[in-house]
């Protein structure tokens, strides 16, 4: 039995695995947000199919799509044109009648989910009011000023704030007020009609209209496509701040000189307190269709669609967590990085590592994740390794590692999230040399030996070739 296989692995550099990832669902600092019960999504989609046309021309455009989005997440929808992104957004927003499947949207005022299947048009109106829509086209009324266009949205929801002040604040924050990005006075665009505004300014007014009621769900289609870098950053930062409160110091990092900001944009000093004033509520979830890399990099979840199907649904933090966990394990050193990533992606369950998984998550991705209650043994010393034996990466909870020597049980260590075990037996083909038992409720990602061997076999020839090149070079063997 290998002793090192089950021995506790040193903590990750920078303490990875021991600390929590910044969760989009953090409740601290959240005010006045009636969010769903802990662990429950703000949006739930199950088995959604959709068809266009009737009779012989009836064509299926969405195929059995299932997705959950947690409160406060920024979800990026990606995929080629015609893959069904927009259709699924319109179904979520209640803009189309749901034909097959289930969609539930959390209604903070109701304190419950609103189901969209079988809902007649008048009731869909109530669902639409929960949502802030940002369209690619601004669709402002030419006859109304910026303030009046925003007021059209404000009329739909009562607010404790002075409506005019709220509208002026958000327009000012979006650089349409009396101060520009360089903190110089400028003529405000409050009373401008769209004809007198540039394309980007119109889009910002439309964004202000979408966000003025602090919706709990934002559906956006290329929201920053028409915006300059500074305006784009202001929009994205506002969406993020509505999702979860950030430290003012953190925000001030975005107040930077133009040469430093480059194409990423910057905020003005005065925008930071204004942002705090506007975003008094948090927990806003956003689903954004975009190709803007500035937003892509901020995503909490990336949903990729192909030909009407959700092909991948990745919580970015979970992907990082698993990839980092595998990368740290010496057992995976023999596997090429891209193959490591494939293994990592194959075990993802689409739940943030800070959040507990539910039984339906396990059922949806069988064999990827196991849950153990306190006291349950995960690996027992002496167990024979076979094709079904697994490598484990702790997702949540704490385990203890102990070994029996001459009938005496000896606790070796305790391990928490981000730590792994079970890999040495893979490599050495020996029985387990220690017992791992759950101290708390434990969730572990698992990679079985068959999978491991498959990817290793793909990687080995490449590694062998690299080593052969080294050996044939200057004759200096690299061992």
């Amino acid at each position, binding site marked *: 039995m290998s002793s090192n296989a089950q021995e506790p692995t040193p903590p990750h550099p920078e303490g990875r695995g021991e600390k929590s990832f910044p969760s989009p669902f953090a409740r601290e600092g959240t005010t006045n947000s009636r969010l769903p019960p802990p662990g429950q999504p703000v949006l739930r989609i199950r088995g959604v199919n959709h068809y266009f046309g009737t009779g012989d021309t009836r064509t299926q455009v969405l195929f059995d799509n299932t997705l959950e989005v947690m409160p406060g997440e920024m979800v990026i929808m990606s995929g080629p044109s015609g893959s069904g992104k927009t259709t699924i957004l319109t179904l979520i927003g209640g803009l189309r009648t749901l034909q097959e499947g289930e969609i539930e949207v959390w209604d903070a005022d109701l304190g419950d989910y609103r189901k969209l299947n079988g809902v007649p048009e008048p009731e869909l109106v109530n669902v639409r009011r929960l949502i802030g829509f940002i369209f690619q086209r601004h669709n402002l*009324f030419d006859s109304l000023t910026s303030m009046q266009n925003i007021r059209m949205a404000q*009329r739909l929801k009562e607010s404790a704030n002075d409506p005019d002040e709220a509208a002026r604040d958000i327009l000012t924050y979006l650089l349409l007020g009396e101060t520009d990005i360089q903190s110089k006075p400028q003529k405000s665009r409050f009373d401008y009609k769209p004809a007198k505004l540039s394309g980007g300014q119109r889009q910002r007014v439309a964004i202000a*209209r979408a966000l003025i009621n602090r919706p709990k769900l934002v559906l956006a289609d290329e929201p920053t496509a028409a915006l300059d870098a500074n305006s784009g950053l202001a929009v994205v930062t506002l969406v993020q701040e509505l999702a979860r409160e950030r430290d003012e110091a953190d925000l001030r990092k975005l107040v930077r000189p133009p040469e430093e900001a480059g194409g990423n944009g910057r905020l003005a000093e005065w925008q930071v307190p204004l942002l705090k004033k506007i975003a008094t509520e948090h927990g806003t979830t956003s689903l954004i269709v975009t190709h803007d890399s500035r937003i892509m990099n901020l995503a909490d979840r990336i949903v990729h669609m192909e030909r009407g199907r959700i092909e991948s649904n990745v919580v970015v933090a979970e992907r990082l967590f698993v990839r980092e966990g595998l990368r740290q394990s010496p057992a995976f050193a023999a596997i090429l990085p891209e193959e490591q990533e494939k293994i990592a992606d194959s075990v993802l369950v689409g739940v943030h590592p800070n959040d507990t998984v539910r039984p339906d998550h396990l059922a949806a991705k069988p064999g990827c994740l196991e849950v153990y209650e306190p006291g349950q043994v995960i690996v027992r010393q002496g167990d024979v390794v076979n094709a079904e034996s697994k490598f484990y990466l702790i997702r949540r909870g704490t385990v203890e590692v102990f070994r029996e020597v001459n009938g005496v049980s000896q606790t070796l260590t305790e391990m928490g999230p981000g730590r792994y075990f079970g890999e040495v037996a893979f490599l050495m083909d020996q029985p387990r040399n220690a017992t791992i038992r759950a101290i708390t409720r434990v969730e572990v990602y698992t990679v079985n030996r068959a999978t491991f061997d498959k990817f290793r076999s793909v990687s080995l020839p490449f590694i062998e070739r690299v080593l052969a090149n080294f050996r044939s070079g200057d004759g200096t063997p690299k061992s």
Partner: protein
Amino acid sequence: MPQPPPVPLAWKNLAHDKVRFALFASGIGFAVVLMGVQYGIMNAMLDSNTVLIERLKGDIVLINPNKASLLFREGVSRRRVAEAEGITGVKSITPVYVEYSTASLRHTANDPTNRTNTRRVRVIGVDPNADVLDLPGVTAEHWRELKTPGTALYDRKSRAHPDQTNHPGETVFGKLEPGVRTELAGRDIRLVAGFEMGFDFGTDGSVVVSDRTFEKWVREPYYLAEPMAECDIGLVKLDPGADPKAVKAALQKKFAEGGDVLVLTRDDLVSREKSFWWKNTPIGFAFGAGVLLGFVVGMVICYQILASDVADHLPEYATLKAIGYSNRYLSWVVLQESLILAAAGFVPGMLVTSGTYLLLTEITGLPLVLTPGRFSLILGLTVVMCVASGLLAVGKVKKVDPADVF
């Protein structure tokens, strides 16, 4: 909780482009003028036949039930009419005589070339002391003069001479003015003063004479025995403070048994007369069709305006739907637009209509009058016209697909 003030979207959408809005308003205004003028002419036609009745200074009238119109000869017995005098609330009963068929007026000017052809004229015979006709411009002195047999008051608004170039200001009866001696029913008559009443379907003009002149000039040649046994209208004046309804009911009761006297208020008689002409001439159809045409034209114009407005703002309406506005709100916006168009078209339309009324009255002599009731009816038609168009256009806005905004 503070609620932002409503945005007058309908008004803003329409008034955003002022030139376009002016064109819209003029389109609706055109329909208003069309309806107003047609309706005005129709009413003028009917009104012209009731001017005499409206000039009667009495509350209740007694007529022969078989007298379908003033034009017809059927009279009511003076003896029977006099029986009403005992009824409580009745102050006086005065017979009024009207002759259409047997009387004619001809100008007998000294210069033979100025003499006119004989034309039928309406002759109204009244007791000059009884004060039964409201004829502005006719003084007490004129009424006294009228007591002299062979005198008459003439109608300055008799049908105009067709050749106004050579006969400026003249009527078809020639040049009528106080002091002129002419010929009524073949006998000399002297004109005392003029009044204004106008012509109608049955006559080209009227003269008013005393009952004695009426008897001698008009009746005696045709009714040898008891020429004044019947009058055309028994005009009932009431005591001050008497309730016309109660007196009318009492009179109806009084004459119910005989069935030879019909008791009506003056307004009833006006309605009865109009109804006769409405039913027995194509006035209603001809001008009613004109009003309908105006209505339809207005509806089409209004619908085009509203439908194009919806089409122009399709993405915006779709956006409103997408952000949570109901079909009911959008429909209300379209209906508001229709009401704004109604108001914007009605005001200038009625100004033009009023001007047209004055012009037509001046040209034709027809009494085109815009009463509050008629004003309200045109307003009502305009509103119904625009709202009906609005309701049609609502269908378009209801079909707006909010999914189109993505």
